[in-house]
């Protein structure tokens, strides 16, 4: 997902750059109090952890491996404000020093990999905590599902940017289908690993999981033992559910043959589309089966992402306001911490 320079057009790069700068600016403002105090080296070393976790392979199937993306993990462990800043720093340093992802592509790379995953993932996490039991098991499931969804949100965000900034003629439908399809699978791995990692931190140092700062510590000790297969099954079910929801939008698709013709580009050759003057790149809407349907899908996806990121931002701001009270609780663990160090 580290898109290189010139992958999307200049207008999209500038627009996403402005959105990313704004969102990270909010994160910085909210995190200022923490960063001014003890958390600068702490945030830096946590960023090193997220960066290192991205290089750490885990098994997927038959010996193939994948790695964490870490946006939702950072937001859950460090809180949405510090988490988003930390992941943004990882993405920026990867572009600037490691040449991984373009420097002029930072606008959309930061938006997709830091802003959407951290704020969106955190909003989903907090939303799920309202539904799930407020125990360790509940938190582990909420983190896992939130991380999986955050990856899919990120892929969806990229597809939406493609609609505005495509640089070669692959229609939105194809990009959306391929990106979301692949990332549903990646999301399962991300979800399982994030859930288990949060569970491990919760078992050792529950006070370090910023995402559950307001939950009852005693209740958090309550963990039902669930087999790994059960966890995976739950993850697959959620992915299936998401896939069903996504495919509902595509339900009134043309019949099979026509569909194949569309997919292989046969039907696109002679097509003259009606959206030449619309504010979207010609390429992305080039050869859509049904412009209004695809735009409806894009619109819905856009609303979902905006809502998720917005909710995450609100949660970050609210956390910032409530810190006066929350920090008292955090300091209870001061002596224990010194002992461990």
């Amino acid at each position, binding site marked *: 997902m580290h898109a*290189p*320079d*010139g*992958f999307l057009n*200049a207008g999209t*790069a500038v627009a996403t750059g402005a959105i990313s700068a704004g969102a990270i600016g909010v994160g*910085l403002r909210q995190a*200022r109090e923490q*960063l*001014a105090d*003890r*958390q*600068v*080296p*702490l*945030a*830096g*070393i946590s*960023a*090193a*952890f997220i*960066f*290192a976790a991205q*290089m*750490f392979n885990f*098994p*997927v*199937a038959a010996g193939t491996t994948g790695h964490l993306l870490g946006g939702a993990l950072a937001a859950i462990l460090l809180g949405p404000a510090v988490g988003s800043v*930390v992941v943004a*720093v990882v993405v*920026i*340093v990867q572009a600037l*020093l*490691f*040449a991984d992802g*373009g*420097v*002029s592509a930072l606008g959309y790379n930061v938006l997709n990999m830091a802003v959407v995953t951290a704020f969106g993932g955190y909003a989903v996490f907090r939303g799920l905590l309202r539904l799930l039991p407020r125990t360790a098991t509940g938190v582990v499931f909420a983190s896992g599902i939130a991380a999986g969804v955050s990856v899919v949100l990120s892929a969806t965000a990229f597809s939406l940017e493609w609609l505005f900034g495509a*640089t*070669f*003629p*692959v229609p939105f439908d*194809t990009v959306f289908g391929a990106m979301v399809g692949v990332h549903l699978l990646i999301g399962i791995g991300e979800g*399982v*690993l994030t859930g*288990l*990692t949060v569970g*491990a*931190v919760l078992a*050792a*140092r529950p006070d*370090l999981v910023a995402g559950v700062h307001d939950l009852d510590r005693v209740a958090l000790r309550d963990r039902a033992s669930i087999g*790994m297969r059960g966890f*995976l099954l739950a993850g697959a079910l959620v992915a299936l559910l998401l896939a069903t929801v996504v495919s509902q939008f595509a339900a009134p698709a043309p019949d099979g043959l026509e569909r194949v013709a569309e997919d292989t*580009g046969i039907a696109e*050759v002679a097509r003259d589309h009606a959206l030449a003057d619309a504010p979207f790149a010609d390429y992305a809407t*080039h*050869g859509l089966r049904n412009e209004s349907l695809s735009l409806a899908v894009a619109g819905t996806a856009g609303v979902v992402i905006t809502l998720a990121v917005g909710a995450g931002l609100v949660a970050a701001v609210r956390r910032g306001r409530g810190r006066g009270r929350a920090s008292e609780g955090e300091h209870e663990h001061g002596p224990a*911490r010194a002992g461990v*160090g």
Partner: protein
Amino acid sequence: MGAGHAHALYQHGHSTVHRMGPEAKLAAGFASVVAIATTPREAVWAFALHAAVLAAVVTAAELPPRFVLRRLAIVLPFVAFAFTIPFVAGGEEVTVLGVGLSRDGLWGTWNVLAKAVLGASVSIVVAGTTEEARIFKGLERLRVPVAITLIATFMLRYLTLIADELRRTRVAMRARGYAPRWLWEARPVASAAGAVFVRSYERGERVHAAMLARGFTGTMPELDTRTATRADWLRGATVAGVVAATALAAAVTT
């Protein structure tokens, strides 16, 4: 920790490019990347000119070409992806070796390839000629928030350490017979990651306590007072100017 800083990103040297003030170098690099990214793809000659300018800078920086090429391997995944574009893209088709390919898709491949390679090269040259601490100092002088540059500084300083810690836990697990092949066998990996996070966090607290003991007030002391001179800015502007002029000429002629 002194030895940890000399990582593979930076090539020690005393060239003109090495000595340039970091803020001028970063500004020139950023302007060049933007110009490269906005060059119209049909202007193949413009990309050749960009490459020539970059080659000249690499020579002036006394960077071994092999170093630049080796580090360019990072764009390989996108190169592989770029070669699939003509097969999935729509639009007018051309026949190459009996296979129908999208003309626009072929241009897309070229576009991704050329810009990814050139853009990455600029980052490699900047990172290859500037110590990490000076890069962040330069960013700070370019008005990037101090919180961002400080976090980045700490992150890079501890990256190899944390990565090593993760690697060691993995080696320890493997030595005890853990050889996972499937996702549902990943629990020990995740537990190890969780344990390393807790250790990283506690390390962060200890580091901060140590810094406070040494008089840390929230900002790092200014050790590197070498700011960019007028000549540095002029050099940067020359390189960025040539690249930008090429991009502009390409935009006008196509």
